[in-house]
């Protein structure tokens, strides 16, 4: 019945399929024809990631894969070592990753009056959540209480 209605109103087209296929095939073509573009992306990716971890630049693999209606860039970047968390980095607006790895440090390390109130709230919530998943309620509860 839906097919019938589609026919009646003329939307059953294969042109939409054609358009979609064309869009994807041209993206792939253009990437294939521009190896220097891929190299540039690789370089930039590594530069960004290297600010946080040490990566093996020689073993990086970048591939492109069709996934349904999208083209995905898949990067395999071997990590050699993880830098010590840098406090100056962890204190700026998005602290979640550090907070969830080491909840007590984050909760205690952030002086309550130094951070703006909005950030404090978020920090409190993430540390609670992290504590829950770490299944260590006994030590987590006082920690979050201390933050208050």
């Amino acid at each position, binding site marked *: 019945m839906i097919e*019938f209605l589609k*026919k009646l109103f003329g939307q059953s*087209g294969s042109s939409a399929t054609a358009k979609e296929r064309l869009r994807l095939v041209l993206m792939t073509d253009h990437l294939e024809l521009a190896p220097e573009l891929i190299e540039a992306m690789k370089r930039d990716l590594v530069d960004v990631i290297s600010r946080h971890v040490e990566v093996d630049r020689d073993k990086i693999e970048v591939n492109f894969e069709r996934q349904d209606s999208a083209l995905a860039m898949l990067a395999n970047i071997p990590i050699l070592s993880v830098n010590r968390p840098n406090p100056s980095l962890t204190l700026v607006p998005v602290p979640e990753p550090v907070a969830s790895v080491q909840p007590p440090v984050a909760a205690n390390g952030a002086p309550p009056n130094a951070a703006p109130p909005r950030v404090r709230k978020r920090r409190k919530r993430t540390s609670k959540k992290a504590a829950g998943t770490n299944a260590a309620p006994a030590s987590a509860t006082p920690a979050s209480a201390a933050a208050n």
Partner: protein
Amino acid sequence: MHQPQTVQEEKEVQSSAPAARLGRAIVLTSGKGGVGKTTTTANLGTALANRGARVVLVDADVGLRNLDIVLGLESRVKHHLLDVLEERVSLDEALVPGKHSESLFLLAAAQSREKDDVETAKMKALISSLRERFDYVLIDCPAGIELGFRNAVAGADEAIVICTPEVAAVRDVDRVVGLLGNRFRPQLVINRLRPNLVKKGKMLSVEDVNAILRLPLLGVIADEPEIIVTTNRGEPLALRKDTPTGAAYHAIAARVAGEDVPAPMPAPAKVTILERVGSLFGGKRA
């Protein structure tokens, strides 16, 4: 898609010819085979000549001579492109006058030779000398992007790309436009459009195609059964200005010549209610 949206319209047309008033050498190309390069070359040439321009059509499809047939000139071809390039005959001996116009000429391809036999530098020189004698040198390019393509393009300074509303054709045109770069300021002709199918969402529309290619649109030619008939007879449809498709070729010619006329769009045929109801029950999905 590679280049920024080219907005140079017809304005540069006259000013592009240097002081010596050289003619314009335009290559008609597509990448994909069978999309209508030869048909478009014959009809555009006929329409341009009909406007009073001096036109020569060069069949650069060495080994697969076609343009003579479409123009109905096959029995008059005595010499060909390679005879001229290899200096066996003069240009004048090789140029075949058109049947229907005094200002249209054909330089046929060699049928029994191969594309590799053409020397790029000589081809370039030949097109240059043709530009001194004609207002338009239209070069019918072979399919593909190999040597035959490069030779056809070598002497040209402009390109018209022919595309049908199909995935493979658009993809190939995209590739060819990338290869041409900006030097040829490629313009687009969409060929074999079926407005009824577009309306039903079963064929890519002009907008769909050009949303991807983003080229200045010269014109749109319908999928036209009459083209088969006129090709059979060797009389390009552009000779019949009173037909919609003949008129569409003339509009393309006018736009090529720099006139600010609109490109007519093929109109869908009126479908009666009865036909519509019939197709609901009988018709297959595309």
